[in-house]
C-alpha cells in the first residue's frame, strides 16, 4: 500500500505460503511425504483422529447429562492434534492451549485425565510418569498466557545444550494478546528451538477471525518477530504433520523458531457452555463439514489401499470402548481430601498456614463438592 517513489528504496520483502496435500475430497495436490505412504504410520494417524472424535463425543455427552463440567470440544480440529502428536519427539516439550487432546493422548495423557480436568479435579493435570506428557505443560485457560513460557523453556534447553524442541499452541483469538506477541517478538533473539502453532478455527467464541485483526493471515503476524511463517491446511493431517515436522526438525538443528498457522474450523459450539447458533449461520457450519479432516483422510487411506470397512468398524468399536472406559474411570475416581487444596501450594506448607489446613481437615467433606 506504500507506493515506491524516486525517494524510496525497498528494504525488506516477505511471502507467506500455504501447504496442502489433501483436497477436501481426499485427492492429492502433490506427492505425499514418506510417512503418509507408510501403511502403519498412515493408519495410526487416522486411528488417533477417530479415537479423539469418539472421546470428544463422549465428553460432550457426559456434560449434557450433568456428569462433567464445561468442556471444550475439539470436533473438526482433530487433524492438528494428531499431527502434533506424530511430529513431536518424546523428549520435546508441548505447551498446549485447551483443545489439543489428540496430541496429548499421543504423548501419554490418559483420556480420563482430560475428563478429570474439565470435571474440576486438579489431578487431571498430573500426567503420568514415564510418558512424554509428564514433562509437558497442562491445558491453559487464560488465553495466550502460556505461549511466552516457551521462551523460558526453550532457553533452558539451549542452556543445557539439549536437542529438544518446544511447541506452543493456541487459537486465532489468542494472537491478539500481548503475551503472544511478546513471545513471537523475542523468540528469534536467541534463535530458540520453538514452533509456535496457531490453530485458526475461524472463531474465538463469537468473534469470526476476520474481525479479530486487520491482518489478512495469522501467519504474517510472525513476521513481526522475523520468524519464518507459513500457513497449512489444518484439516489435512498429512500437510499439517509435514509442515510441523519440518519446523520442528529445523528448530532441532539450530535453525531457530518459526510460526505455523493451521487453517481449520470449529464444528462444535465454543464449549458446552456456548450456543453457537446465536452468532453463526448453520450454512457455514454445514459447508465446513465438507472439509472435515477425518473424511478426507479416510478417502486418501482408502484410495491408497490402507483402510477397509472392517478396519473402520474395528476402530470405532475399540475407540467407543476406550472413551467409555475413560468415562467410567473418571466417574469412579475417589474424591480428593478437602485439605488437598493445601498439598501443593508450596513445596512445604508454611507453618503460619497450618491452621488453615487443620481447619479444613477438621470440617471434613463439604456439601456442594461433587
Amino acid at each position: 500500500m506504500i507506493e515506491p517513489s524516486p525517494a524510496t528504496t525497498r528494504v525488506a520483502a516477505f511471502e507467506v505460503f500455504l501447504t496442502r496435500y489433501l483436497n477436501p475430497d481426499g485427492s492429492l495436490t502433490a506427492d505425499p511425504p514418506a510417512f503418509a505412504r507408510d501403511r502403519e504410520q498412515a493408519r495410526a494417524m487416522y486411528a488417533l483422529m477417530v479415537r479423539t472424535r469418539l472421546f470428544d463425543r463422549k465428553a460432550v455427552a457426559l456434560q449434557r447429562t450433568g456428569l462433567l463440567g464445561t468442556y471444550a470440544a475439539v470436533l473438526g480440529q482433530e487433524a492438528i492434534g494428531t499431527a502434533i502428536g506424530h511430529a513431536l519427539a518424546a523428549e520435546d516439550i508441548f505447551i498446549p492451549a485447551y483443545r489439543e487432546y489428540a496430541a496429548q493422548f499421543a504423548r501419554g495423557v490418559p483420556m480420563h485425565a482430560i475428563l478429570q480436568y474439565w470435571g474440576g479435579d486438579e489431578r487431571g493435570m498430573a500426567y503420568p510418569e514415564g510418558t512424554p506428557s509428564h514433562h509437558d505443560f497442562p491445558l491453559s485457560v487464560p488465553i495466550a498466557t502460556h505461549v511466552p513460557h516457551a521462551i523460558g523453556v526453550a532457553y533452558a534447553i539451549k542452556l543445557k545444550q539439549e536437542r529438544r524442541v518446544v511447541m506452543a499452541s493456541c487459537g486465532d483469538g489468542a494472537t491478539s494478546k500481548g503475551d503472544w506477541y511478546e513471545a513471537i517478538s523475542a523468540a528469534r533473539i536467541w534463535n530458540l528451538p520453538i514452533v509456535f502453532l496457531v490453530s485458526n478455527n475461524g472463531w474465538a467464541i463469537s468473534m469470526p477471525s476476520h474481525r479479530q485483526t486487520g491482518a489478512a493471515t495469522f501467519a504474517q503476524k510472525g513476521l513481526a518477530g522475523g520468524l519464518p511463517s507459513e500457513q497449512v491446511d489444518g484439516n489435512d493431517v498429512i500437510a499439517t504433520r509435514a509442515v510441523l515436522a519440518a519446523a520442528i526438525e529445523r528448530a532441532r538443528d539450530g535453525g531457530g523458531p518459526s510460526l505455523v498457522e493451521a487453517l481449520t474450523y470449529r464444528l462444535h459450539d465454543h464449549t458446552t457452555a456456548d450456543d453457537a447458533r446465536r452468532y453463526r449461520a448453520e450454512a457455514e457450519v454445514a459447508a465446513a463439514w465438507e472439509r472435515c479432516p477425518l473424511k478426507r483422510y479416510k478417502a486418501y487411506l482408502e484410495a491408497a489401499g490402507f483402510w477397509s470397512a472392517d478396519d473402520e468398524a474395528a476402530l470405532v468399536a475399540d475407540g467407543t470402548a476406550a472413551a467409555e472406559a475413560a468415562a467410567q474411570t473418571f466417574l469412579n475416581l475417589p474424591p480428593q481430601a478437602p485439605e488437598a487444596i493445601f498439598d501443593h501450594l508450596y513445596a512445604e506448607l508454611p507453618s503460619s498456614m497450618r491452621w488453615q489446613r487443620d481447619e479444613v481437615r477438621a470440617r471434613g467433606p463439604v456439601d456442594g463438592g461433587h
Partner: protein
Amino acid sequence: MADLALIEAVNLALASEMQRDARVVVLGEDIGRNGGVFRATLGLLDRYGPERVIDTPLAEMLVAAMAIGLSTQGIRAVAEIQFSGFLYPCLDQVVNHATRYRNRTRGRLSCPLVIRAPNGGGIHAPEHHSESLEATFAHLPGLRVVAPSSPARAYGLLLAAIRDPDPVIFLEPTRLYRLFKQPVEDSGEALPLDTCFIDRSGTDITLVSWGAMMHDTRLAADRLAEDGISAEIIDVATLKPLDLDTILESVAKTGRCVIVSESARAGGWASEIAAGLAEHGLLSLFAPVMRVAGYDTPMPLARQERVYIPDVSRILHEVRKVFEMAPR
C-alpha cells in the same frame, strides 16, 4: 416493576443508561451478537448498533486501554471483562493511567470509565473463572470499586458507576447472577457510591460483607435470629473509597464484628475493614474482629470450590467464637 435476576438488572441498567446518554458505549469480548458470556449485554447490539456496542479483539489490556482512550474524549466507556480472573492484564492500565490522567494533567484529562466483570466462584466454572479480585483493585488510589449484592443494588450502583466522573471497577457476583429475583424499577435513579448499606438492622453483632457472600451472610443471620441473636448486616457494596463510619457506628452499638469475604484472606478487603476497627473501633469492641474468608490458596477447581468459599457454617462458627469470648 419487573422481577429481575441480578444479571438482568445489569442488562437493564446498561440499556437504560445507553438510552438516556448517547455518550455511553459498551465494549468487550463477545458482547455484541453473543450478548456477553453471561448475557449482560443482551439486545444492546440490536438497539444501539455496532458503533456503540463494540466487540473487541481478545486482549484485555487493550480493552482497558481502549476504554481509557475513549473516556478521555468524553465517551462513557463501559467495558466488560469476561471473568475477573482475566482482569490482571488490565491492572497496569488502570493503575498507571486510568486513575492518574486527571491527577497528572491537573484535571485536564480524565477517565470516566467502568470496567465490569463477574467476580467469585460457586458456579462450577472452569479453572481461572472463579477468582475474587476486589482487594487487588481496592488498594489502588484514585479508583472506585463497587460490588453489588442484589438486583436492585446492581441496577442503581451501575448507573452511578457509569455516571461517575472517575474510573470504577464494578465486580458482579457471578454466583448471584441468576440465584434470585427481585423487583427492579427502571427508575433511572442511581444509588450513592460511597455509603455502605445497612442491609438489616440488629443489636448483638455486626456482620459485614459484600457481593456474593452477602447471600450467605443473610442466611447466617437468619439462623442466628432463630437462636435469638440479632445480627446487623452491613453491605459494603462500595468497597473503595470505604465508608468506615457506617461500620463503626454499627459496631459501637453491637460491640461485635465478623467480616465475611470470599477472596483469599491475607490482604483481603476484610483485613482493611478489620484494621479500621483496630484503629477507630477498639473501645467499642467486646470481642476480637473475626474474618471469614477464602483460604490462602488459589480458588480450587470446581470439585473443591465449596471447600474454599466461606459458607453459612463457617460464618456461624466464627460468630459462635465471638459470643463465647464475649457472651451477651
